[in-house]
């Protein structure tokens, strides 16, 4: 999130696309409804389903799954055509604008209607609504990302906000709600396949940086890899790790994956789940660390599974990072019960047994405060260094002194600081950055320009134009020594830059000069190293509109994409829709969480939502003879088939089937309920919805495309 949940209270309008906050983020709703009530701010909900958020919204726009980019480009085109763009913001702080507009102009309201199903008049009406109610807070969630063009779709969201001039402003911003209380922290700590903690990447310099932080010899670490090339090669992703086990697709590493540790990972959130299950059976070793036995624990039918019961969040303590980039301290309520251990203990025991505890635990004496200190010391890219455990705890103890609207402490020991020291918090004196890219405040007081990362000048392939990438003259934070754009800071300490200077002299020097360590640049509409330099619409791999493939085809197949080939062009079969005529999309329900191992084990939540179901429009259901509450089958093009209860509702249209993804314990009709260790079976088991989500992955991130597949259905 560029802003915070609380800052949404200042929005004059809100647009949610691929986000259903009442089910997925109920707490955020108090701020959303506050803005609606106090500011008369319209809540625009763009979603294939008329969701619970739509029930609280003022404007609902039903969109065909996977066509979000087309709608956004349509809005941008309508805004630019009518002259509603923020011309000064674009002139001073945006790059590649002309090149972007040249692409967006093809998305006329009529063309958008053809692609998305949204009436042309609605596109114009929403564009005008946004133009007249600035700033707009824009929110997306998994519904915006889980597509083969997810990385393009999210960029169109950002570009819309740039065009409207809504970035770096209170009440504006791109506010992506994270799904759990510490997902932002988990992401920051580098759970992705292509980066070390804090987005340092996997390059040699990145490894050397972290080796210095850990006080571990780089050559020793390098020696543990087969080669230095392997060390810098992105690994398998969460979405497709099983390809490394199954051997059914070509993989780009010497040996298949033989062992897997799933730590706090409910596996039935993986698409293509029948293949995931087969991979479990093929592994030599599967270790599951979780407070509850997950679906993986029972789906794996070979004798290779170890369950390590871990403590819940109430039985341990430590720092967590919220969706608003705030760091908070979580206090232990009770000691771990039964035979479980907390995650720190499990990790320490494992590392000791593996024989490298000595080099890795040098800085860690007082768990978990030392862990927070060590990760903060290294995570300079995102300014995690100012949030010491002492400061975090002081904020928790003085919660009542912070203002609910601004998040700033009024008096008291944290006077002037922002709650949770939202990153970047550059130094131990810095108040935190409540709104990213806000040039109205000095950097020392929580302001920030756009980051300079990819050079000072760019020549665009599409137009041949050369453009300076730094912010225009006169645009900078108050007190900046340079009155305008400037490059990122380096060689303040020779041989280092602001990200790698562990003495933090570079960062402190920059702030003393009123400048941001990462420079002052423009936000880019053109990304030269992406296949679509300006984001465009491409038809979903499995599309119900094959007539659009010629004009909006997918990408060429991508080899060695996180160590495995990914099919795009060869997977986009125009005839598929004849046999699989309905769109399948998935999502959350408020009663259950993620893969549901925890919530389905709570008797009261189980009571509220005791059964897996599919949402189906009454008209479609009646045409096919599927009665409300009777059983129906859902079958994927990959051959998986589940039998679930039909739930008639007009939330979905006549072409779309919706499945919640929280259920597990039954896979394609076969129950695994008796496979749970005695006394640990959840109260509720149900078909794994992800058994029938389709093949398809994002071209950049490889996130699974679970929101826009195809299926066929029948009365069971």
């Amino acid at each position, binding site marked *: 999130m560029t802003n915070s949940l609380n800052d949404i209270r200042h929005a004059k309008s809100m647009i949610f696309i691929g986000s259903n906050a009442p*089910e997925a983020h*109920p707490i955020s*709703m108090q701020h959303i409804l506050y803005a609606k009530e106090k500011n008369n701010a319209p809540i625009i909900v763009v979603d294939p389903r008329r969701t619970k958020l739509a029930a609280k919204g003022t404007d609902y726009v039903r969109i065909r799954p996977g066509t979000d980019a087309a709608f956004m480009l349509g809005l941008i085109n309508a805004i630019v055509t009518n002259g509603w763009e923020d011309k000064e913001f674009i002139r001073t702080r945006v790059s590649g604008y002309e090149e972007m507009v040249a692409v967006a102009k093809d998305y006329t309201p009529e063309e958008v209607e053809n692609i998305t199903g949204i009436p042309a008049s609605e596109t114009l009406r929403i564009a005008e609504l946004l133009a007249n109610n600035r700033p707009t807070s824009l929110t997306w969630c998994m519904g915006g990302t889980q597509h083969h063009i997810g990385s393009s779709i999210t960029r169109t969201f950002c570009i819309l906000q740039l065009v409207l001039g809504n970035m770096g402003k209170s009440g504006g911003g791109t506010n992506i709600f994270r799904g759990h209380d510490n997902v932002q922290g988990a992401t920051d700590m580098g759970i992705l396949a292509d980066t070390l903690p804090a987005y340092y990447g996997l390059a040699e310099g990145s490894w050397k940086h972290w080796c210095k932080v850990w006080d571990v010899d780089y050559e020793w670490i390098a020696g543990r890899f087969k080669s230095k090339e392997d060390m810098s090669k992105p690994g398998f992703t969460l979405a497709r790790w099983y390809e490394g086990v199954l051997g059914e697709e070509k993989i780009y590493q010497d040996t298949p994956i033989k062992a897997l540790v799933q730590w706090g990972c409910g596996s039935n959130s993986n698409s293509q789940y029948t293949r995931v299950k087969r991979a479990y059976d093929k592994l030599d070793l599967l270790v599951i660390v979780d407070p509850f036995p997950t679906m993986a624990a029972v789906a794996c039918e070979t004798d290779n599974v170890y369950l390590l019961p871990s403590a819940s969040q109430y039985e341990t303590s430590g720092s967590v990072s919220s969706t608003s980039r705030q760091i908070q301290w979580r206090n232990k309520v009770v000691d771990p019960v039964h035979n479980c251990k907390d995650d720190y203990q499990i990790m320490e025991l494992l590392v000791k047994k593996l024989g490298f505890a000595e080099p890795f635990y040098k800085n860690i004496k007082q768990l978990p405060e030392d862990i927070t200190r060590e990760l903060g010391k290294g995570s300079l890219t995102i300014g995690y260094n100012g949030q010491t455990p002492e400061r975090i705890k002081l904020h928790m103890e003085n919660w009542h002194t912070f203002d609910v609207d601004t998040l700033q402490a009024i008096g008291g020991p944290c006077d002037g600081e922002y709650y949770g020291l939202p990153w970047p918090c550059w130094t131990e004196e810095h108040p935190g950055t409540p709104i990213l890219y806000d040039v109205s405040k000095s950097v020392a007081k929580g302001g920030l320009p756009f980051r300079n990362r990819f050079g000072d000048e760019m020549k665009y392939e599409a137009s041949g134009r050369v453009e300076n990438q730094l912010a225009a003259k006169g645009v900078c934070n108050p007190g900046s020594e340079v009155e305008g754009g400037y490059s990122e800071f380096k060689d303040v300490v020779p041989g280092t830059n602001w990200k790698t200077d562990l003495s933090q002299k570079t960062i402190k020097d920059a702030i003393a000069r009123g400048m941001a360590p990462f420079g002052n640049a423009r936000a880019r509409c053109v990304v030269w190293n992406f296949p679509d330099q300006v984001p465009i619409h491409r038809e979903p791999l499995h599309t119900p509109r094959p007539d659009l493939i010629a004009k909006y085809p997918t990408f060429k197949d991508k080899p060695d994409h996180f160590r495995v080939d990914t099919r795009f062009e060869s997977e986009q079969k125009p005839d598929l829709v004849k046999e699989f005529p309905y769109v399948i999309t998935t999502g959350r329900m408020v009663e259950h969480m993620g893969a549901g191992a925890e919530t389905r084990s709570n008797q009261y939540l189980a009571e509220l939502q005791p059964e897996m179901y599919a949402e189906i429009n009454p008209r479609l259901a009646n045409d096919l003879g599927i009665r409300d509450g009777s059983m129906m089958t859902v079958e994927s093009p990959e051959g998986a088939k589940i039998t679930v209860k039909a739930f008639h*509702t*007009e939330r979905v249209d006549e072409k779309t089937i919706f499945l919640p993804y929280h259920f597990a314990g039954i896979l394609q009709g076969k129950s695994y309920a008796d496979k749970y260790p005695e006394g640990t079976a959840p109260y509720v088991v149900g078909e794994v919805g992800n058994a029938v989500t389709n093949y398809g992955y994002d071209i950049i991130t490889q996130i699974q495309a679970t929101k826009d597949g195809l299926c066929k259905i029948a009365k069971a």
Partner: protein
Amino acid sequence: MARVKFLCDVDRCIDCSGCVVACKEGNHVPVGVNRRRVITLDQGKPGEKSISVSCMHCADAPCIAVCPVDAIYQRADGIVLVNKKTCIGCGYCFMACPFGAPQFPKGNVFGARGAMDKCTFCAGGPEEDFSAEEKHLYGQNRIAEGKVPLCAGMCATKALLAGDADIVADVYRERVFQRGSGVNAWGWSKAYKE
């Protein structure tokens, strides 16, 4: 002290059932007994609305009037409670209640229903405050601790308000007054062009 009241602001209720689960978990209510429920109208259609309902602790409570054994009584603060040791499970209160609040844990078609259970406003029961027996039969006594009922305390959007009726009314009145008072105040764009 004035009487206590519940108020559910339907413009704020998002049908998350947080109140239901808080009530059950906090008072160890058996599965199948619902002291509180969220009702949704026009689910998935334009105009969808949700409201959280429990015993409303009525002023002239019909359940008290119909109870043949005088098991139900009203405290000075308006909280309506049942004495489970007196209740014979006849179910008259359920027929009389305009909100469907009374619950019968052992209910089946011809069998005995067991003592009636319902929302206590988190005020326990006739037993001694904080006694083990009170907790076992009725759940927590948060009122005696000076706290609001769990359901309202847990509400994510503060749709559900509970407590001293004057204060509840003030909170709601302020909320109604505040609606439309901020940056996009009604009529401002027409009256005073920016």
